[in-house]
């Protein structure tokens, strides 16, 4: 395919693709090749599927498409058969012969593979009817499951690069910026800064300007940026190109984690194809506008997600932040005006330009517009990526979409905002999630990680966990962050080991306030948040650790032991069989006994017992 030299070439190319799709109208099997499904074995399923189709001579009639992430990662690998839209979750190689024989050849369902709603036990055939998807509004993420991320044709066929066309030929840079401002889009990388205002400021400054995409995604538990880059890289690129047109920049970078090899690969393919078709490079679509975009791979340092650290890293140096007396939109990468946005922020841009600011601003709340992708993970039944309008309540997300807490356990808290965020307790479940509401309860939106915690999660341990993370990740330049986090961590470790003292909680609060006030960068100023919110909402757990020397959730090993409740024990012997230390003895159908001398508190018996007979004491 040669370069598209002008606007009408793109339009006729798109029409050609659509006509071709229409004429083919054949069966299509879309198999998710995102990282989540990959971890459950997509590659083997794909090989089995291709072989089986060939065996039946169907390879011409049926196309197999490796798609991007569908979001329902818990149930991977996910397979969808079109045109009927039949949804089969958790597919293994040995399911393939049945699927080909029954569904592909005879159009029948394989009943044993159909998705069963865990709550209602109802069988559901179509992806869109599943409660996990029903309440979502997949504005950004919707095409992920429908297109092959390595195919620019697929992207163009669903309307891709239409917004760029509009931006290049029908709008001035000022008009683009105006639309983005009117849309109310705020940055999805953490801070929620209004994107249009950032662009406007950068546009005003002179120099060799840069557009940069922050794909460092350091927040543990959040992976929407990964799924977007892996599943729909052209959407992010199109957003960046429009941004470059608006601020008048001719060079861009995507800073992506080395730990995301598939994202790097799909993005590289996307860049190459976009150049070949003339969406990047010199004289884009004949408009006279030039832009080159490069990939830079970062190396597993959380602080490199911070804007100034990221730019230092791009320059080939250690990623240490600097004080921001001068903002990066004025002097950033190579000391030039640099406009940094998060992956998801960029992905929103084509939608805004295509559908208009008014359409976009109708979604969401007063001050937080559009949709947000959350990564709903941890102790929740349906884990995965969830895209909902801003303002959707935590309860809808966790219970209606997420299916609640598995194994009949009780909800304890949801952690948002990653290491800079906080833990939100049950009383705020009706909170409509947007930037400001989360801040009001002491947490933040962050990049959209939502880690659900149940009764078995110890909040003191969670606070210790985050500080342990941040101590490792602190770049060490400023004292409050480097020494303060270490001091807080020491206190928390003591508390978790049963050496907590009266006054520790107050000391943690004092230290926390000091670190928040005096640290150099956002890592430090937000580092105490997980500790401060857990103290605010779960003070009783801290007190149990310090005063009673007990960990009520059974996590901090020195502060609890297991016991078998003789009344509840049915003598099913499961725990005794599973115990790696042979610490459990007893006869069949008689109450069992746990030898505390031998017990290593691994928790296997606790997880295994179906009768709640293993108790935390």
């Amino acid at each position, binding site marked *: 395919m040669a370069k598209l030299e002008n606007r009408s070439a793109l339009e006729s190319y798109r029409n050609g693709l659509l006509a071709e799709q229409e004429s083919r109208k054949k069966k299509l099997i879309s198999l998710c090749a995102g*990282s989540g499904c990959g971890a459950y074995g997509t590659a083997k399923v794909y090989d089995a599927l291709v072989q089986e189709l060939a065996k039946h001579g169907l390879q011409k009639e049926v196309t197999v498409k490796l798609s991007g992430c569908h979001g329902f*990662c818990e149930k991977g690998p996910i397979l969808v058969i079109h045109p009927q839209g039949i949804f089969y979750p958790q597919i293994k190689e040995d399911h393939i012969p049945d699927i080909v024989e029954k569904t592909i050849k005879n159009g029948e369902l394989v009943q044993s593979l159909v998705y069963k709603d865990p709550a209602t036990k109802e069988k559901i055939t179509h992806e869109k009817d599943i409660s996990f998807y029903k309440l979502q509004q997949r504005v950004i993420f919707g095409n992920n499951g429908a297109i092959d991320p390595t195919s620019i044709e697929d992207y163009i066929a669903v309307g891709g690069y239409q917004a760029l066309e509009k931006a290049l030929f029908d709008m001035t840079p000022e008009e683009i910026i105006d639309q983005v401002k009117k849309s109310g889009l705020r940055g999805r990388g953490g801070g929620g800064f209004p994107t249009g205002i950032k662009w406007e400021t950068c546009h005003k400054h002179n120099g060799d300007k840069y557009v940069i995409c922050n794909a460092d995604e350091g927040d543990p538990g959040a992976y929407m940026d990964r799924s977007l880059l892996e599943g729909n890289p052209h959407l992010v690129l199109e957003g960046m190109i429009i941004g470059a047109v608006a601020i008048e920049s001719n060079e861009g970078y995507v800073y992506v984690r080395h730990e995301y090899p598939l994202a790097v690969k799909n993005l590289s393919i996307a860049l190459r194809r976009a150049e070949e078709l003339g969406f990047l490079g010199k004289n884009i679509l004949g408009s006279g506008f030039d832009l080159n975009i490069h990939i830079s791979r970062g190396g*597993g340092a959380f602080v490199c997600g911070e804007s100034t650290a990221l730019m230092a890293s791009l320059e080939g*140096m250690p990623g240490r932040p600097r004080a921001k007396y001068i903002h990066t939109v004025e002097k950033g990468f190579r000391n030039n005006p640099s406009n940094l946005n998060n992956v998801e922020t960029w992905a929103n841009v084509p939608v805004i330009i295509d559908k208009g600011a008014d359409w976009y601003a109708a979604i969401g709340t007063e001050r937080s517009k559009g949709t947000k992708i959350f990564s709903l993970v941890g102790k929740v039944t349906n884990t995965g990526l969830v895209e909902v309008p801003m303002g959707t309540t935590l309860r809808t997300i966790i219970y209606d979409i997420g299916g609640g807490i598995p194994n009949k356990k009780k909800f304890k808290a949801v952690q948002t905002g990653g290491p800079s965020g906080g833990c939100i307790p049950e009383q705020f479940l009706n909170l409509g999630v947007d930037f400001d509401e989360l801040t009001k309860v002491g947490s933040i939106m962050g990049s959209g990680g939502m880690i659900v915690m149940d009764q078995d999660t110890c909040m003191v341990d969670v606070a210790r966990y985050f500080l342990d993370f941040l101590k490792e990740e602190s770049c060490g330049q400023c004292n409050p962050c480097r020494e303060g986090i270490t001091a807080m961590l020491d206190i928390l470790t003591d508390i978790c080991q049963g050496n907590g003292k009266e006054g520790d909680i107050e000391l943690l609060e004092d230290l926390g306030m000091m670190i928040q006030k005096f640290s150099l960068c956002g890592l430090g100023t937000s580092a105490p948040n997980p500790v401060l919110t857990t103290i605010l909402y779960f003070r009783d757990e801290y007190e149990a650790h310090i005063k009673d020397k007990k960990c009520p959730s059974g996590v901090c090993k020195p502060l609890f032991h297991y016991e078998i409740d003789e009344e509840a024990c049915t003598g099913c012997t499961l725990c005794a069989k599973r115990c790696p230390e042979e610490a459990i003895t007893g006869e069949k159908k008689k109450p069992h006994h746990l030898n505390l001398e031998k017990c290593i508190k691994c928790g296997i018996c606790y997880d295994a017992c179906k009768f709640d007979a293993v108790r935390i004491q």
Partner: protein
Amino acid sequence: MDIDWKKIDDIADAYHNDRESLLMIMQDISDIYNYVPPEVIPVLVEKLGINPSLVYSVATFYKTISLEPRGKYIVSVCTGTACHVRGAEKIMDALEDRLHVKESQTTEDRLFTLEAVRCVGCCASGPVITVNQNTHGGLNRSSVVKVIDEYEKQHVS
């Protein structure tokens, strides 16, 4: 350590010997040897026209780079938040038992290096480990041991 100097040259050339690409050059070298052999540092200094101190500070700042030899298989246990609340610690325990090493150590036969990483972006499938570039999800104490057994078998055969 036998170093294929031609390959090192090729890698640096692929990045036009650009000093801004230092980290990526080291990552590519690491992909071959599973670590950055210190012998290559003077060569990088020369080719990229930078100070040795910069190479060392970059190599020690970023976790994807190691200056110590690592095993053929790098087993990284995700200790990200989602995996943490789903029992990543138990996975680490089981691996330490199975491999007879502690976190960030390499087995005597140089087959496995055990490491902790903070989130590999497969949080819905937690607890998760990666072995080189392969991800394994939905693990528990016994299934993670089986994963290691598989790699050991692969190596022997």
